[in-house]
């Protein structure tokens, strides 16, 4: 059974199992801009990136452009998509506006880029949870046939970051569930060019960390065995090692 964690030496919280299982179900479905098969191919590239020697050489180079080579890859996605997946997994701190714009010139539109990013970070995070516990990664799901919806939110703006996002006052209509309080933050808006990518991360974050509402509790969530300070020490240390300014 998917994400039963029956091979884990420790009991895994039920809500974490359910969140991971739910994402795996979404992963297999056609998305907004990628088919189910392509979405699973992106997930497979996440796993290739982790052991990609070319990525390791590039990361250790003063400039990634001084190193030539080929990524470890399955050959299902085109080179631009593969390179983008590997960059996000292994050297995300050196992604620039030019990198995203160049990818768009090569056919990876901003919509494709955002959905790909959402898949990459979700799969990577689930795999990291398993690795943290010493549990093997879950087998990837079988793709569900069908075409992408090509859904694009009605209100987007390009005044923040590398990709268009829904403005703080733009979560209306089909997107009204994204921040019902009317308040938002850039990290919440980041993937909103593909609203389901944000919904996926809300779902995963609610189980792995805290729900958006739960983040206002700075003391302790009753359903967690660690308090907020302990959570933020972990969060801060991971972010510092990843050189994350945000």
């Amino acid at each position, binding site marked *: 059974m998917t994400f039963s964690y029956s091979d884990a030496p*420790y009991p895994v919280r039920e809500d974490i199992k359910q969140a991971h299982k739910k994402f795996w179900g979404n992963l297999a479905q056609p998305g907004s801009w990628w088919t189910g098969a392509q979405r699973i191919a992106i997930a497979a590239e996440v796993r290739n990136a982790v052991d990609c020697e070319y990525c390791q050489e590039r990361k250790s180079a003063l400039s990634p452009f001084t190193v030539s080579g080929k990524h470890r890859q399955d050959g299902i996605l085109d080179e631009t998509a593969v390179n983008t997946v590997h960059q996000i997994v292994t050297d995300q701190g050196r992604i620039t506006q030019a990198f995203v714009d160049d990818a768009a010139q090569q056919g990876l539109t901003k919509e494709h880029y955002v959905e790909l990013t959402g898949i990459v970070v979700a799969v990577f995070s689930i795999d990291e949870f398993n690795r943290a516990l010493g549990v093997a990664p879950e087998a990837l799901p079988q793709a569900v046939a069908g075409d992408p919806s090509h859904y694009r939110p009605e209100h987007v703006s390009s005044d923040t970051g590398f990709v268009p996002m829904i403005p703080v006052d733009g979560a209306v209509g089909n997107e009204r569930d994204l921040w019902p309080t009317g308040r938002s933050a850039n990290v919440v808006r980041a993937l909103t060019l593909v609203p389901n990518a944000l919904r996926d991360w809300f779902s995963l974050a609610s189980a792995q960390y805290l729900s958006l509402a739960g983040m206002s509790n700075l003391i302790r969530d009753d359903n967690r065995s660690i308090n907020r300070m302990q959570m933020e020490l972990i969060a801060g240390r991971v972010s510092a090692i990843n050189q994350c300014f945000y």
Partner: protein
Amino acid sequence: MLRASASVTETSIDIQGINGDITAAAKGIEFGPELMRFAESLARRNEQALADARGELLHIAGPAVLVDAAGVAANFQRMVRIADATGIPVDNLANDVSQKIRKELDLDSFSSAKNSLETASS
């Protein structure tokens, strides 16, 4: 958020735990050094250190803490990649608290700081 949580709970902490200072992590945070080593070994992809840190945390804090810590660490492995892949700037860069913490932790030296600092100066 660490500082905010400590403030609300009136706990004295040393924020340098985030920079890997074991002594600082131990101050005011239960299992602080063990949680820090666990998070660090995961993010650095040091498998032997991760196995050691996992065992250490399990031994001292138990399986429920280990699982919840794994969830938080995995979550923030995702968040840093969302932030950097989309180039978002920090929301409250000019805030006094934000500026103080940036200085204390030398955050402006991080590669992804450019996404916020360039936005603020433009």
